[in-house]
């Protein structure tokens, strides 16, 4: 009874549920990443490196998900690229720079 009453009063400012949710999201991602062989980690890094050569990556618009299965695992890389991105211009610029 008293616990419930305390929760009722404290509920509005309680930060523990926020902490719990943040950790659940983060750890579900990291457990996958850490448990994997280096291959998926390397793939993730190299894919992101190649993409970032051509487009400026916005950290909020990049989603990397790893899922482990018994026989196969999946690496999902979801990158939002702005529509006004001009590929020929970027290549020309790189030629100039190179």
């Amino acid at each position, binding site marked *: 009874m008293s616990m419930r009453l305390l929760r009722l009063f404290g509920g509005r400012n309680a*930060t523990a549920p*926020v902490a719990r949710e943040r950790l659940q999201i983060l750890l579900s991602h*990291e457990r996958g*990443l850490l448990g994997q062989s280096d291959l998926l980690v390397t793939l993730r*890094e190299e894919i992101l*490196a190649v993409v*970032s050569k051509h487009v400026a990556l916005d950290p909020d618009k990049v989603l990397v998900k790893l899922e482990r299965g018994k026989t196969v695992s999946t690496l999902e890389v979801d990158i939002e690229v702005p529509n006004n991105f001009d590929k020929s211009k970027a290549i020309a610029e790189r030629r100039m720079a190179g």
Partner: protein
Amino acid sequence: MAKVLVVTSGKGGVGKTTSTAALGAALAQSGQSVVVVDFDVGLRNLDLVMGAERRVVFDLINVVQGVAKLPQALIRDKRLENLWLLPASQTRDKDALTDEGVGRVIGELRSRFDWILCDSPAGIERGATLAMRYADEAVIVTNPEVSSVRDSDRIIGMLDSKTVRAERGERVEKHVLITRYDPARAARGEMLNIDDILEILATPLLGIIPESQDVLKASNVGTPVTLNDADSAPARAYVDASRRLMGEQVAMVVPVERRGFMNRLLGRRAA
């Protein structure tokens, strides 16, 4: 003129990451451009305390190894536009950091920021020595407790011998930051008092951060304590400490909790 400041301690769990986030945010709040750099490779946590854990794409090791360029790895804080984070890698081992690589990254950061705050890992191994290697100044985070003071003393010795400045015959400017201080317990003689700690360590005091629930609340929601509740006792103590870092003279007081109406009511009932 950019300043590289390492936040270090030797002992774990004394508040290095909390202090890095809080001091970094406090400096940024006063208009300085600041980057906080996580050196705890394999066990990063500064991203979590800063609330940027879901925005990490590249990290310090990627930059050191040339996989990513520095601007690609820097994450801008969502609340303060002149506060940035350079996260540590969670997946690589700490040997991936090299002295030259770290030196190059620090050099690049110097040209972009007023303050570079390096959050050191615990211990005295490679990660900790590289975090302090290029420092101009050091904040030694110390709890009023014997093992923490002993480890701080050890770290002070390393700052005086293993840094680039020390090897050049120059000094790293050192400051002690006492955290988790409980004035009531110190008054009852149950806790080492400030003067004892400073006398043993023979290093000037940067600030005294009182033990407070607000620190846990801030890390729960991923906000530096100075941003989460600017009026809280630890926030005021960190802001004072940041002003001292900028060279201001600020009287040394231990901020106390300002108790609200409900707390006073409950406090009185308990007493």
